[in-house]
């Protein structure tokens, strides 16, 4: 029993990270119908920026977090402006390959900027774990889960309550009508990119203290985030969130109860089953037909 609770705690922590990554991917998808395969690299940028700003430059924590986020947003903005928008591709697979190129480029840049060694970042608060029902809960896990909820909530608020957010939704549901209402959809796409990559950076910021950061940490995380977004249903914000948590918990339970070597396989088999049974994901928002 105690073990199960421990597995759940671990799963929810990892899941919350996947969730933040998935939320960023999903949000970009819902406004531009693009999956950014470089998303994981923005997670890396966030984590490595924390290493630089907080550990090396010893900036105050809030400032370091803000700076790391800003770096993520700016890079996303530049990426949209100079790569995605310049590309006049009609076939979305071409855009996807561009993001693959960007991911390799960013990884290379990261290696050059931060070197090949991994780094460790201290926890936001004390290291001591809290004991609940005989299972240990890390304070950083609480930070991560709270952060994930806060972030998803924040995006929810932005999309539902602010004029710009609603305009972004409007562009996503009906770009033609949005244009006819005077909403500049290109600017919305840039904004969506910046927010999405910002989310990636935030995931990196949260993850840095619980694990080790290195220039090549992003790929697998981006992939897991992609899976999570798929499980939840592309374009659905809370679906992505739930998908992330579910994937994390499945992995943890799989590792704990069945086989740690096969845990990823277990997660992927369930993912395939979900896709077969509910082809649009658990919380399908709309038909995802792009390539």
């Amino acid at each position, binding site marked *: 029993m105690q073990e199960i609770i421990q597995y759940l705690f671990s799963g929810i922590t990892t899941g919350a990270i996947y969730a933040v990554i998935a939320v960023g991917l999903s949000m970009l998808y819902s406004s531009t119908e693009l999956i950014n395969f470089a998303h994981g690299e923005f997670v890396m940028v966030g984590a490595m920026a924390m290493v630089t700003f907080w550990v090396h430059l010893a900036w105050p924590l809030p400032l370091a977090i803000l700076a790391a986020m800003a770096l993520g947003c700016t890079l996303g903005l530049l990426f949209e402006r100079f790569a995605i928008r310049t590309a006049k591709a009609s076939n979305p697979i071409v855009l996807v390959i561009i993001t693959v190129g960007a991911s390799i480029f960013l990884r290379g840049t990261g290696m050059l900027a931060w070197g090949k060694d991994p780094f460790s970042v201290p926890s936001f608060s004390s290291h001591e774990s809290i004991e609940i029902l005989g299972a240990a809960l890390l304070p950083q896990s609480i930070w991560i889960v709270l952060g994930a909820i806060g972030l998803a909530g924040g995006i929810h608020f932005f999309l539902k309550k602010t004029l710009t957010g609603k305009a972004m939704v*409007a562009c996503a*549901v009906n770009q*033609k009508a949005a*244009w*006819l*209402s005077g909403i500049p959809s290109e600017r919305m796409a840039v904004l969506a990119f910046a927010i999405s990559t910002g989310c990636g950076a935030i995931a990196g910021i949260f993850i840095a203290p619980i694990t080790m950061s290195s220039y090549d940490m992003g790929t697998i995380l981006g992939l897991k985030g992609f899976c999570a977004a798929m499980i939840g249903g592309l374009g659905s914000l809370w679906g992505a969130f739930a998908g992330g948590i579910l994937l994390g918990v499945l992995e943890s339970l799989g590792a704990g109860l069945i086989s740690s070597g096969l845990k990823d396989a277990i997660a992927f088999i369930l993912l395939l089953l979900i896709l077969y049974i509910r082809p649009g994901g658990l919380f399908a928002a709309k038909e995802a037909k792009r390539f």
Partner: protein
Amino acid sequence: MLRIKNLKCSYGSITAVHGVSLSVKKGELISIIGANGAGKSSLLLAVCGLMKTWSGEISFEDNSLRGMSPPSIVRAGISMVPEGRQIFSPLSVMDNLKMGAYTMYRKRMKAEVEKDFKMVLSMFPILRERADQLAGTLSGGEQQMLAIARALMARPRLLVLDEPSMGLAPKIVDMIFETIETLRNQGVTILLVEQNARAALKIADRGYVLETGKMVLQGSADELLVDDDVKRAYLGQDYGDFYDGRGN
């Protein structure tokens, strides 16, 4: 106010409009009628900037619209109620209206937007009742009213309506046309594109008849209402006339 000269539109290899000219004066209600595929919608797409591949001339208040994007055309003062309504179904009715006022908000004219809300909601009381509902849950007629209201929120000097009666029950159609008439009486210049010729001509000042991408008739609405050719444009000639008529 709006002047179109020798407009030609084509999609790929299909030419939908072959050299159409028309004009709309301030305060007028103009109807363009014609059967499906006559090229009415293509003409409107060109006016609103959604179609780029047109040649000829379109000018609004003496400024050419060539190369302008839809948002800048909205800012210039033309609002369009698109065919099939195209409301933002996952947003609430109120939010749909806010989207319509997007350019107003961006011009920092919040006070005016508030006034417009009042005006629009009093014109369409049903929308006030459903202000918080998701737009997708409205009935067809309500959606059409919402689409019109949304377009009005941008304070257009020219309102363009594309087939507002499409797919609606006759009673609702009557209501919509009454609303359009009221708007005209309030001084809004209106360009109405319709299949429903009688209803459209009844409220219009002048009318144009399009057939297979060409302007075949134009004149005052009253003249057109009684014109036999209008009927022909819709229902075709009868069997015997067909091959003779084409043979000439």
